[in-house]
């Protein structure tokens, strides 16, 4: 009998479709993901290729997009809504463009990731309904494009920072652990919202609104110090300020700016709360997702 695979030798299969796995075993998730890493990368690659294949400027758009965003926002905040008291929006000696871009690229990463992940299962229902594979791959692959734009955005940020006279010191390396914390929050929330969105499509709309609110409730185009200063001067009630600080992105964005633009080690308190949120979000998101994964196709 002729071998079915056309004579090729095939080694033992290690992939176990997640839906056959024990639902409770949290540790199974990283194992499944490790086994599906090639699939994850393939899906990301597909997303990138498809996005730019028929665009005349191709991958250049990844560069143009954050640049255009920065130019528009800089124009609005520096020329149209000029601060009346002449106080710089970010710390002393930090140009508005650099400060804005630093907040923007990291904020955009989370926004785009959570937004794309939330819709991912529904958008990829043609796969989910038909083939059994590690379901987590779908929302995680949706974060591929935001990650790519983040990398491009970082390059733009560094260039802008240097051109406007800034220095890049060793403290910039702090951005790496900060990003890991942000990644945990983003992935955890993405998994959670994508699983919930399948059952209740309302989640998608809620996420959009929440992210829009988050843009203003996070120090993207202004400095966290402004909020802190306003709190200590009594202009903002303490309760509101606490509420504001429950948003882990508030501390994270401030920490990124300290590490890159101010060239110093970020204040310790800025790490603590985001780390806690990151762990909670990642665990919670994974558990909820895995619980829904087996029957997610029933709702599509």
């Amino acid at each position: 009998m002729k071998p079915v695979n056309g004579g090729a030798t095939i080694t033992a299969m290690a992939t176990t479709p997640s839906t056959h796995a024990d639902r409770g075993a949290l540790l199974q998730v990283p194992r499944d993901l490790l086994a599906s890493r090639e699939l994850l990368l393939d899906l990301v690659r597909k997303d990138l290729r498809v996005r730019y294949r028929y665009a005349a400027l191709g991958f250049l758009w990844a560069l143009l997009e954050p640049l255009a965003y920065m130019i528009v926002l800089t124009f609005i905040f520096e020329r149209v809504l000029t601060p009346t008291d002449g106080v710089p929006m970010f710390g002393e000696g930090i140009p508005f463009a650099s400060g804005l871009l630093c907040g923007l690229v990291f904020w955009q990463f989370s926004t785009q990731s959570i937004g794309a992940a939330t819709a991912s299962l529904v958008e990829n229902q043609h796969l989910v309904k038909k083939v059994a594979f590690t379901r987590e791959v779908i929302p995680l692959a949706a974060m591929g494009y935001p990650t790519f734009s983040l990398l491009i955005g970082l390059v733009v940020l560094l260039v802008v920072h240097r051109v406007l006279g800034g220095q890049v010191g060793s403290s910039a390396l702090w951005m790496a652990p900060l990003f890991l914390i942000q990644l945990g929050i983003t992935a955890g929330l993405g998994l959670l919202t994508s699983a919930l969105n399948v059952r209740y499509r309302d989640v998608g709309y809620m996420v959009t609104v929440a992210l829009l609110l988050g843009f203003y409730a996070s120090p993207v185009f202004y400095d966290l110090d402004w909020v802190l200063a306003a709190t200590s001067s009594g202009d903002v009630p303490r309760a509101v300020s606490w509420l504001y600080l429950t948003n882990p992105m508030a501390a994270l964005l401030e920490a990124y700016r300290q590490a890159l633009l101010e060239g110093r080690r970020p204040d310790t308190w800025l790490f603590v709360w985001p780390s806690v949120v990151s762990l909670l979000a990642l665990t919670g998101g994974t558990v909820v997702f895995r619980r829904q994964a087996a029957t997610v196709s029933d709702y599509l």
Partner: protein
Amino acid sequence: MALIEATNMAKRYPALGGKRALLGRGGMGRLFRTTPPVPMALSPLSLTVEAGEALGIIGRNGSGKSTLLKLIAGVTAPSEGTLKVHGRVASLLELGAGFHPMLTGRENVYLNAGLLGMRHAQVRACFDAIVDFAELAEHIDRTVDTYSSGMFVRLAFSVAIHTDPDVFLVDEVLSVGDEAFQRKCRARILALKEAGKTILFVSHDLGTVQTLCDRVLLLEQGEVLSRGDTQATIDYYLRQIGQAQGIHRVASGDVEALFNHGRLSLFHRQREVTAPLGLKVQFFSMGSYHESTSAEWTLESPGETEFTAVGTFPRLPVRLYLTVSLVEGRLCLSAAWENTQPLDLSYVALQCFLRSAYTTWYAGTQRGAFPPIAPQDHQWSTVATVPRNTASCAVQASADGALPPLLLEISDADECARFQLDNTDYMAQARIVHLTEAIPTGAVPLPPGRRTLGTLVLDPTCDDAALRQVQRAQEAAERIESGPLMAQYRGGALALSAHEQLLTDALHLHAQLRCGALWMLGTDFTWDVTRETDDTLVITGRSARLAGSLCWEVTAATPHHLGLVLTLHNEERLSLSEYNLSLCLEAGYNAWQSAEASGVFGDAGALGTGWTHLNPTYEAGPYISATGPERPKITLHADESLGTVFPTAIRTDTAQDGRVVQLLCSSGRAGAFALEPGAHVLFSGRLWTEDPTSS
């Protein structure tokens, strides 16, 4: 080892709609919930599938077949009970999952295989095999949006089949691509089965289910109605479910016929006579085949024993009309078709698929056995062509008596229609009797109009005597008499008899041609017999190996004499190295005589094996004759105009124990007779008998 073990497994889908689902959870839900609970998609079911088993799953749409496969594929999880699946499952449920039109074929292969659980290294190892099987070597680096739908499906199927899992889930995928690729897919699935893979097969194509599956599970509204023996379950399905589906049934005595979406099944004493594919109409238009089973059917005047069904095609201006009546156990099916707009349509056929248990066929004066259908048969093969002047044929099953002999008659058919008996490919596993009409299409599409395809009568109530009667009646039309001498056409040869006593044996009087190294026997040709006048029989034979035809003209001259003219009409240049007219004599003949020599046939045992030429030397001469005790002397004589002819006498080997006399023309050392295209008289002469009393 059991690969799939399901214990009381059930599936209930959630009620769809976010609002209802949300409200259904809380206290408010009880107030607002008005929709009744969702019915079980699959009622508790226990099932064990062993390694190497092929399980068929049949049932109507919505009966839970797909749910069962989805559960086993791991796409969803059971809501009750447990399901254990050991080993890897590949589903051919949905081909090309994840295929993106903007990616190249190569990228899609990796992505799709990845979704099916393959690593890059594994895909790389069998990548060439995937591309070869899909026949896409040149296109693999082009984006998929440049592919035709056929190419797309071929690639998708190829990936799926190369994932090398333990369990294959197959759902109607065999209806993808063109005919040739479908056959290839079927062959591949068959190979998988024979390689010991486990297959779960969902299909409406009951013929394939029957061939492929060891066991069948019949589902109805999520419940298992029947499981076990394939044939019994399929019969049950067709009779019970099919009927409940509002499909029309006519019955008379032991015979009943069931019309089910463009397919007619015939039952005799509750056993299906037709193969699961039944009787249907097929036509070729706009580049693809269309079947009556894909039309929308409405019944007109459905009665106890007759009805008319009209089938329309959603995207073709074609209507099919089937009129069925059942009178005294004879089923009469008239098929007509109509195109309401000018249409490019080149072929229409009425196909009757019969159970492969039918082993013997009768067509005109011929009769033969259907060759067995072997696993490597991927194509239909012609078994016999029913001569144009014959309107009937019959099939008979082997002796166990479960299936009745079946008589099939054609009437009202177009002159150009061909009536033919075929074997199907292995998967369909059936005998086909079909009436095919090829419509010559030029640049002009066929003008609108209603045309008759023909009427087919199936009679499962006939007995063996009736079968022979059919044969007799036909024989009369294909015989010629000259006093007591009679020549009867019999499958490419002429059987001679005098005073009702048969003079010839085995191959009777036949012609042999030798082209190069290839001997062609007249009996290998497909013949058409026409009676020109009472005294002339014209028999024209064609063979796939000969561009042209061979034509006998047999005339009754003076009593005891038959005139014989054999003409070759070749359409291409042909070189013949030798040809002859051979007469296989009955065992009573013991001596032969030509102008130059004579001898006896003698005892075959003394001659050993092989054919033995009895003439000591080859001397040209115009005739050869044979004699025997109590036998009329029989003489074959060539006309002088024919040139050099060699009379030969041959004793065949011990096994055949045959006595042959022949007149042969050989090109000898010249090599070959080069025949330009045109008509060439190969033989002209006479054959006569002299009664022993008169000599």
